[in-house]
């Protein structure tokens, strides 16, 4: 009646540079869902930040700015310009918070992954499960934010329906890279680097003003940041400025996410399966 994990499969995964897993990553997600049933209040804070920004900047500052010309040439209100960027940022915030602080605690203090790896679960299950949960959390924030943006009358294009899957995709890239980076951290002090990476990105990834405002060289720097690609993707969809160019952003985020997942799994393997 039993079918122990297929040796053929483990032989294949050993031949490739993919860390082992038992295909049970969903159980890691289940663990997090169970845990958050006790502390669901923690979910709320991440939702409010971008909403507050939307009203203070989009509506408040927007009153002083008659209109904005996007990098793709449309003329829109400032609030409509800022909303997609904040949607991307909320996906980033949710994903990064979970995949850095929470993962660090589980990895270094609670030793939860040691316990998981003593079961059939492998490092790949741990990485995929944690990242899936983080992107889910980012997705929830984004979904709620999108709802607020729609209710506030800032969304007009039907392409906006793709805004949510795109946000989940952005969350995936940030969750994966966040977890990968976290495996290198050995002290809480290292979280300063997370803030150092997130804050400037939040402010300067063409979030609050178009890319064309930056001098030439800086424009290229901005183009390198992952949030820029997230913002550009969401802006294209929410303002209905859709073109093949958006696939570039998708490709960038996909590559980043895959590197993050593989890197995180390999690091977990190296740290805990010595």
């Amino acid at each position, binding site marked *: 009646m039993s079918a122990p994990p297929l040796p053929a499969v483990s032989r294949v995964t050993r031949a490739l540079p993919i860390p082992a897993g038992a295909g049970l990553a969903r159980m890691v997600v289940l*663990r997090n869902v169970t845990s958050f049933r006790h*502390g669901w209040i923690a979910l709320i804070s991440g939702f409010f930040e971008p909403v507050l920004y939307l009203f203070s900047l989009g509506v408040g500052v927007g009153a002083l700015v008659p209109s904005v010309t996007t990098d793709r040439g449309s003329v829109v209100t400032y609030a409509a310009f800022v909303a997609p960027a904040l949607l991307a940022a909320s996906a980033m915030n949710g994903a990064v918070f979970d995949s850095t602080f929470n993962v660090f605690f589980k990895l270094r203090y*609670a030793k939860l992954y040691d*316990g998981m790896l003593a079961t*059939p679960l492998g490092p790949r299950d741990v990485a995929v499960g944690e990242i899936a949960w983080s992107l889910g959390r980012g997705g929830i924030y984004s979904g709620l934010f999108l709802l607020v943006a729609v209710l506030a009358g800032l969304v007009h294009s039907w392409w906006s329906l793709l805004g949510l899957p795109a946000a989940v995709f952005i969350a995936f890239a940030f969750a994966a890279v966040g977890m990968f980076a976290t495996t290198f951290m050995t002290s809480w002090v290292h979280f300063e680097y997370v803030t150092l990476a997130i804050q400037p990105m939040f402010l300067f990834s063409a979030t609050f003003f178009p890319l064309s405002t930056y001098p030439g060289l800086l424009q290229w720097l901005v183009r390198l940041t992952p949030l820029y690609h997230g913002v550009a993707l969401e802006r294209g969809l929410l303002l209905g400025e859709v073109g093949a160019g958006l696939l570039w952003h998708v490709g960038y985020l996909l590559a980043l996410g895959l590197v993050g997942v593989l890197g995180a799994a390999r690091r977990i393997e190296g740290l805990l399966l010595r």
Partner: protein
Amino acid sequence: MRSLPFGTVVRVTANGSATPAERPTRRRPAPTSGPILLARGLRKTFGEFTAVDGIDVEVQAGESFGFLGPNGAGKSSTMRMVGAVSPVSGGELRIFGLDPASDGPAIRARLGVCPQTDNLDDELTVEENLWIYGRYFGLSRAQVRERAAELLEFAQLTDRAGDKVEPLSGGMKRRLTIARSLINNPELLLLDEPTTGLDPQARHVLWDRLFRLKRSGVTLVITTHYMDEAEQLCDRLVVMDHGRIVAEGSPRDLIARYSTREVLELRFDADDQAAPAAALAGVGERLEVLPDRLLLYAHDGDAALSAASARGIRPLSALVRRSTLEDVFLHLTGRTLVD
């Protein structure tokens, strides 16, 4: 969903005292009828450091086997390799006849692991800890709920089922960790220092639970640096020192082979024990000089004490006791086993 080898749960209606958790676990024929655990020339190195230096071990189904030794002897490194979470550096290792390098998940599915430090999930309740851990083995929701109820009973934690883990006492956490390690009905249970840090009462409760498991046919592999624990729980054990096995046998065998039936412990007022030590030459079989006392190994402790008195030796206190594994260790390594 991948099915794991936990199917055939033998439903034994409790015949009086037996709790469900100690019912005979499925006695699935192992792939080979050989030993549950087999190590030949097993080595573990971390860079230049050799933690396990070529050990040979064989554990049969139903046995209770111990690794005894001081901290740093290589017990935990051995346990991690057996638990299929640490790659073997050299030699051969088979668990259930399987190679951990290629069949890690299949091996871990049939193992229970109770690590040295509790790694319970503090964000979950007591029963959720069991449920979720069972799900890591691919068990269904219904399976883990049923099994968890039995195990909470076994661990005497039923009335704490809905509580958070954090406020539990050390002994309770340890019992929960052991209950958790049994969620998949393991054929082999690995216990790394199961009672370290517990008060005497909690240790006895735990020993009782482990003894019940052993009686129900679960193979136990235990590491410990407590002599009394090894004597209580192990049918057979190896003494490890500096990554090597220095002796092997049942507790009784080892005492018979490396010690005497009785030991006379003598304490003196003076710091210098050289004079009484010299005066005792020829009394008993052997003399160990420790910083705080003399240990005189003799078949008849009382006779040795009379002989010492006859030579004019006046100790501050004298105690005749039975020989223990501690004496074996002292004889084999020339050191006492202290934390």
